[in-house]
C-alpha cells in the first residue's frame, strides 16, 4: 500500500504516534498509579501500545473504503461501529494473550480482568479518534488536489481563450484580395506579382505565430504594413496610411498579432464605409516603462455601419487583460472625425 501510493505514508506513520504515547502513558500509569512492578508495567504498556498501532492500520482501510460521498450516514456509522467493536475486542484479547505469555506474574491476569471494560472503551476511543483524523486527512488532500486541478484548468482555459482571441485571417479579406489578384493578372501582371508576394508573407506570419508568443514591435509593424499594402492595392486612393515610430520602442516585446486587428478595424469602419479617402495612422513612443501605441483613422461621419461595434477591439482588450493581467491598457477616443485606439504596453526600459 505504502509503496503503491507514497502519499499515504503520512497517515500510517501518524498512526504510530498515538500508540507510542499510549504505551508510555500506560507503562507510567501501571508503575506509578497502580504501583505494579517495572516488569509488568513495561510489558503491559508496550504490548498493548504496539498492538494498538497494528490495529490502527486496519482503521485506515475502513476509512478508505467508506467514503461519506458514497454512503449514507447511517450506513457509515454502522460499518464503523461494527469495525470499532471487532477491532477493540480483537485488540484487547490478542494483546492480553501476548502480554500474559510474556509476563507470567500471577497478579497480572487479575489486573487485566479488572481493567477489561476500560481497555475496550479505550480501543473504541482510539478507533474513532483515528478514523476522524483519517477522514480529515483525506478531505484535506482531495481539497488540495481539487485546487491544483482547478488551477490547471484555468490555465488551459486561458490559453484556449487567447487562441480564440488571436486574430484569425478574415475570409472577406482573403477572398477579396484573391479576387483583386485575379483581376490584376489580366490588367497589371507586375502588380499581381507584388500582391501575391505580400499576401503570402502576410499569411505566413499569421499562420506561423504561436498564440502566446511575444514578438518585437518592429516585426508586428512590418506585418501590419503588409496588411495595409494589400488593402491599398484593393482600395487605391480610398485609403492612405502613415507610420510614426520612435526607434526606441522597436525592440519591445509585444503579444503577436496584436496590432493587425486594430488596423483591420480601422479599414472595416473607415475605408469600407467611406467614399472619400480615409487616413490611417500609427504612432508609437515611449512613456516611462510603457510603450504607447496609437492607431487612428478618419471616417465618414455620416456613415452608419451596417454592423454594430466590431468584436475585433473587444478581443484586443480581452487579450491585453489576459496577457498583462490589467484592465486599463486600452483606451478608445472618438472626436472630430477621427477614431483613435490607444494601447499602453508594459515594456521596461531594460529590455532594450
Amino acid at each position, binding site marked *: 500500500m505504502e509503496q503503491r501510493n507514497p502519499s499515504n505514508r503520512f497517515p500510517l506513520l501518524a498512526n504510530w504516534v498515538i500508540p507510542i504515547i499510549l504505551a508510555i502513558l500506560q507503562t507510567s500509569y501501571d508503575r506509578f498509579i497502580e504501583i505494579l512492578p517495572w516488569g509488568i508495567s513495561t510489558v503491559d504498556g508496550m504490548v498493548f501500545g504496539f498492538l494498538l498501532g497494528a490495529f490502527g492500520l486496519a482503521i485506515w482501510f475502513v476509512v478508505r473504503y467508506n467514503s461519506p460521498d458514497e454512503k449514507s450516514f447511517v450506513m457509515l456509522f454502522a460499518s464503523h461501529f461494527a469495525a470499532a467493536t471487532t477491532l477493540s475486542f480483537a485488540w484487547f484479547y490478542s494483546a492480553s494473550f501476548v502480554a500474559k505469555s510474556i509476563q507470567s506474574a500471577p497478579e497480572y491476569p487479575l489486573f487485566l480482568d479488572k481493567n477489561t471494560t476500560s481497555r475496550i472503551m479505550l480501543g473504541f476511543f482510539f478507533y474513532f479518534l483515528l478514523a476522524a483524523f483519517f477522514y480529515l486527512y483525506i478531505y484535506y488532500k482531495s481539497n488540495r488536489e481539487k485546487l491544483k486541478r482547478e488551477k490547471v484548468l484555468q490555465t488551459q482555459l486561458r490559453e484556449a481563450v487567447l487562441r480564440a482571441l488571436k486574430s484569425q485571417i478574415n475570409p472577406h479579406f482573403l477572398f477579396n484580395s484573391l479576387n*483583386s489578384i485575379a*483581376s490584376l493578372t489580366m490588367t497589371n501582371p507586375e502588380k499581381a506579382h507584388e500582391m501575391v508576394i505580400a499576401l503570402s508573407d502576410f499569411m505566413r506570419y499569421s499562420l506561423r505565430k504561436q498564440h502566446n508568443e511575444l514578438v518585437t514591435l518592429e516585426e508586428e509593424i512590418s506585418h501590419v504594413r503588409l496588411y495595409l499594402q494589400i488593402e491599398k492595392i*484593393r482600395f487605391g486612393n480610398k485609403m492612405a496610411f502613415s507610420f510614426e515610430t520612435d526607434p526606441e520602442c522597436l525592440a519591445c516585446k509585444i503579444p503577436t498579432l496584436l496590432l493587425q486587428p486594430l488596423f483591420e478595424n480601422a479599414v472595416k469602419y473607415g475605408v469600407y464605409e467611406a467614399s472619400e479617402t480615409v487616413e490611417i495612422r500609427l504612432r508609437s513612443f515611449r512613456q516611462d516603462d510603457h510603450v504607447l501605441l496609437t492607431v487612428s483613422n478618419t471616417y465618414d461621419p455620416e456613415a452608419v*455601419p451596417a454592423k454594430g461595434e466590431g468584436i475585433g477591439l473587444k478581443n484586443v482588450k480581452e487579450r491585453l487583460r489576459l496577457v498583462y493581467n490589467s484592465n486599463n491598457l486600452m483606451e478608445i477616443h472618438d472626436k472630430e472625425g477621427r477614431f483613435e485606439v490607444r494601447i499602453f504596453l508594459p515594456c521596461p526600459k531594460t529590455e532594450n
Partner: protein
Amino acid sequence: MEKIKVIIVDDEQLARDLLRSYLSRDPRLEIIAECGNGFEGVLAIQEQKPDLVFLDIQMPKITGFEMLELLPDPPVIVFSTAYEEFAIRAFEANAVDYLLKPYPLERVQVAVEKAMKRIQSGTGSKEELEQLTQAHDETTGLLTRIVVKSGSKIRIIPVETIDYLESEDDFVMIYCKEGHFLKQKTMKFFEAHLDPKKFIRIHRSCIVNTTQLAEIQQYGKESWMLLTKQGAKLKISKSGYVALKEFLA
C-alpha cells in the same frame, strides 16, 4: 437583336475591371454603367433601366441588399460577394445567380446564360428576390440602420434615432428625428431585428423606442396610452402593457 444592358455595382475598381473584362467578351452584352457604391447604383438602375445588374453585397453607404429594398421593380440581379456568410443555398436554388469571388470566366458565363433566359422569358424576378432578401434577413443580426427612400433621396436612419414604428397596410411607417418614412417590411421583421433591450412592441401595430418614452397614462380598466418625448400618443395593448411593465421593472 438589341443588346442586353448591364450595370456593374462594386466598390472595388479591380473587381469591376475583372467583371468587365469577362462580360465584354460576350457580344450580346453592353455595359452601360459601373458604380462604386450603393447610392450611385440605385440612381443608375432607376435612370438607365438595365436588364441585368451584377451586384456586390458589402459596399460603403448601403449594401447590395439594402439597394434592392429601395427598388420597386428590380432588374435581374446576379450577386457577387467574397464570402458565403448567409444561406447560400437559397441563392443556388434560384434562377438569379450568386458568384463567389474570385470566380472564373466559365462561372460568369453560366450566370449570364441563366440571366439571359430570365430576361427573355420576361418573368420578373421580384418574387425570387424577395426570397433572397428574406433569406438574408434571417441571417442578419440586429439592425443598426434602416435605409429608406424619400422622393428621389436615399436616407439612412440610424436605429437609435427612431421614435417608434407603426404598421400601415403592407408597410411600416418609421417615425424618427428627421420625419417619417415608409418601408416595405413587416412588423414581425422589425420586432425580430431591433434590439429588444431598446425596442418594445406595445401594440400589434406599434413598436416603440423605450429611450423616447415620456409617460404612460391609464385611461380605462385595461387601456393605456404611451406618450413619447416628441409628444406622440400611442395605444398600448394588454400584452404590450405587460411587456412594458416587465421592461421597466
